[in-house]
C-alpha cells in the first residue's frame, strides 16, 4: 500500500462542501428548520471524533477499540472546567485535549506493547476501566453524569446560541482535517503509514517504532478529547455513557463506513451513519437491526468503505 494521496478533485470538493456548511444555518432558518442546526453540530463533532480515530486506526494501523474513553474524558474535562468556574473554551478545550491526550499516552504506553487481537481487547478493557471510574465518581455525578450549567464562551464570545456552537465545531473540524492532511504528507505521517505497512522494516531502518506509535495514539486521543468537549457543550452533559465501548464501536463503524485511512473517512462515516440514524429511527424503534444488516452487508460485499471512492490509496 502507498502513502495516502488525495484524489485531485478532493480539495475543490471539500471547499465547496465547507462553503455549503457555512451557509447551512442561514438556509435552515430560511426554511424554519433551526432544529437541525443542533443535529448538524452533532454530525460535525462525531466527524471530528471519528477522524481522530482514523488517525490512529487508518494512518497508524493501531486497532483501538477504546477510543471513546478519550472522547468521554474530553467531555468530562469540559464539565469539570465549568464546575470549577473555567468557562472560556480557549482554556477549557486545550485542557480537555491535554487530559485526553495524557490518558491516551498512558493507555498506549501499556497496550502498545502488544499486537493484534490482544491490542484490541486491551484498549477495550482500559476504556471500560475509565467508564467504571467515572460511573463510581460521585463528585462528578456518578451514573447520571456531570451536567454543565451553561455553554462556554470562546474568548468573550458566547456559545449559547446553536449557530455559534455550530460554527465553533465547524472550525474545529476544518482545522483538524487541514492538520491531518498536512500530517499525512509530513515526515510523521509518512513514518506512521510506513510503520502500519511493515513495522519490522522500519525498525531495521532505525526508527523507534514504539515512540511513533505512541505519539500517534496520544494525538488521536487529544483530538477525540476536543470532540468530547464540544459535545459536552452541545448536550450540556458529560455522561459516562460517552465512554462506553459501544460508543467506541460506533466511532469505529463510522471510520469503516467512511473508509479506513482516507483523510475524509471519519467525516463521510459520521455523516452517513448519523443521517441514517435520523432517517431510520423515524420509521422504526428497531432501526439497529437495519443498521446491523447493513454493516454485515458492507463487511461481506464492500470491504473498502464508502470513502474509497473519494481518495486514492493504491494497493
Amino acid at each position, binding site marked *: *500500500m*502507498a*502513502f495516502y494521496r488525495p484524489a485531485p478533485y478532493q480539495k475543490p470538493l471539500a471547499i465547496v462542501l465547507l462553503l455549503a456548511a457555512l451557509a447551512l444555518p442561514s438556509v435552515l432558518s430560511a426554511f424554519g428548520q433551526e432544529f437541525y442546526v443542533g443535529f448538524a453540530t452533532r454530525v460535525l463533532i462525531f466527524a471530528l471524533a471519528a477522524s481522530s480515530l482514523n488517525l490512529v486506526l487508518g494512518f497508524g494501523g493501531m486497532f483501538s477499540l477504546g477510543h471513546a474513553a478519550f472522547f468521554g474524558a474530553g467531555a468530562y474535562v469540559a464539565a469539570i472546567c465549568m464546575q470549577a468556574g473555567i468557562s472560556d473554551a480557549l482554556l477549557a478545550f486545550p485542557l480537555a485535549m491535554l487530559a485526553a491526550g495524557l490518558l491516551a499516552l498512558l493507555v498506549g504506553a501499556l497496550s502498545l506493547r502488544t499486537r493484534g487481537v490482544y491490542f484490541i481487547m486491551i484498549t477495550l478493557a482500559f476504556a471500560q476501566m475509565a467508564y467504571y471510574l467515572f460511573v463510581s465518581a460521585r463528585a462528578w455525578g456518578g451514573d447520571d453524569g456531570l451536567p454543565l450549567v451553561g455553554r462556554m464562551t470562546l474568548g468573550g464570545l458566547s456559545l449559547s446560541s446553536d449557530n455559534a456552537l455550530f460554527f465553533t465545531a465547524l472550525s474545529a473540524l476544518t482545522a483538524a482535517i487541514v*492538520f491531518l492532511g*498536512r*500530517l499525512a*504528507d*509530513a*515526515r*510523521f*505521517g*509518512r*513514518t506512521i503509514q*510506513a510503520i502500519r*505497512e*511493515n513495522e*519490522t*522494516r*522500519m*525498525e*531495521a*531502518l*532505525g*526508527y*523507534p*517504532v514504539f515512540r*511513533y506509535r505512541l*505519539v500517534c495514539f496520544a494525538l488521536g486521543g487529544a483530538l477525540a478529547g476536543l470532540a468530547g468537549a464540544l459535545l459536552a457543550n452541545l448536550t450540556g452533559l458529560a455522561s459516562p455513557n460517552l465512554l462506553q465501548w459501544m460508543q467506541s464501536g460506533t466511532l469505529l463503524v463510522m471510520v469503516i463506513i467512511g473508509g479506513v485511512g482516507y483523510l475524509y473517512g471519519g467525516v463521510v462515516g459520521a455523516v452517513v451513519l448519523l443521517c441514517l440514524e435520523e432517517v431510520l429511527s423515524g420509521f422504526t424503534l428497531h432501526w439497529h437491526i437495519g443498521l446491523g444488516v447493513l454493516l454485515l452487508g458492507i463487511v461481506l460485499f464492500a470491504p473498502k468503505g464508502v470513502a474509497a471512492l473519494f481518495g486514492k490509496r*493504491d*494497493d
Partner: protein
Amino acid sequence: MTEPLLDVRQLSRRFAAVDALKDVNFSVEAGEVHALIGPNGAGKTTFIHHVSGALQPDSGSVHFAGREVTRLAMHQRVAAGMARSYQITNVFLGLSALDNVALAVQGRQDAGSSFRFWQAARTEKRLFEEARSFLEQVGLAKRVETVAGNLAHGEQRALELAMALATQPQLLLLDEPMAGTGPEESARMVELIEHLARHVTILLVEHDMAAVFRLADRISVLVNGRLIATGTPEAVRADPEVRRAYLGDHL
C-alpha cells in the same frame, strides 16, 4: 591489533530443545568482507537476527564499535551504525523506489527528527537528493520513480541494498543478497558489493559459493549452530572439517 568492529562472544540460543546457536565466537574486522556460510538450517539467519537485534540471545554478548549492544533494540543498533538487508525482499512495495530510500534517509539520526507534522516531506530537497544518490550507487538511477512492486526481482534486491546503505552504516549485514536472482543479476550484484566493500565493512551470508570466494576476505563456517572454522578463503577451502560438512559439495 585493533579491536574488531563487530565482536560476538559465546553467543548461545536454544529454541525448544534445539541449540540454534551454541557458543559462537565471531568477529568482523573494520574494512573486511567477512562471509558466513553453512548448509541450510545451520543457523545463519538466526545468527544475523541476533547481531541485528531482532532476537535476543540466552547467553553471550554482542559488541559493536567498541560498546556492548547485546540488549539494545534493533533501531538502536541501526543508530549505532549497523544496517541489514533481508533474505526475502523486504521493501515497501507500494512506494516508489525513491520514497523507499527517502524513508531510510529520513530515519537517520543526522537527518533530523521525524516528529514533523506540518511541512510536506516531499518538499525536503535534501532527503530526496540523497536518496537519489544512493539509488545511483546501486544502479537504479533510471528506476527512481518506479513503484517498488513493479521492479524486477534483481532490482528489488538492489533497492533493498540502497535502503541499507542510506542508513550510512559502518557495518552492512547482507542476508543472502543473491537469493533468487538469475546469473546475470547475480554478477551485477557481486560487482555492486565489491564496489560497496571499498567504503563499508560487510558481513555477508550467502549460498552462492562463487560469489563468496570472490568477495570474502575471510570466511566462517556455521554448522548446526556451531562455528567450525574461520579463516582466509584458501584456509577454509582446505579445512577437512569444512569439507566433511559440505561432503562432496562444490567447495
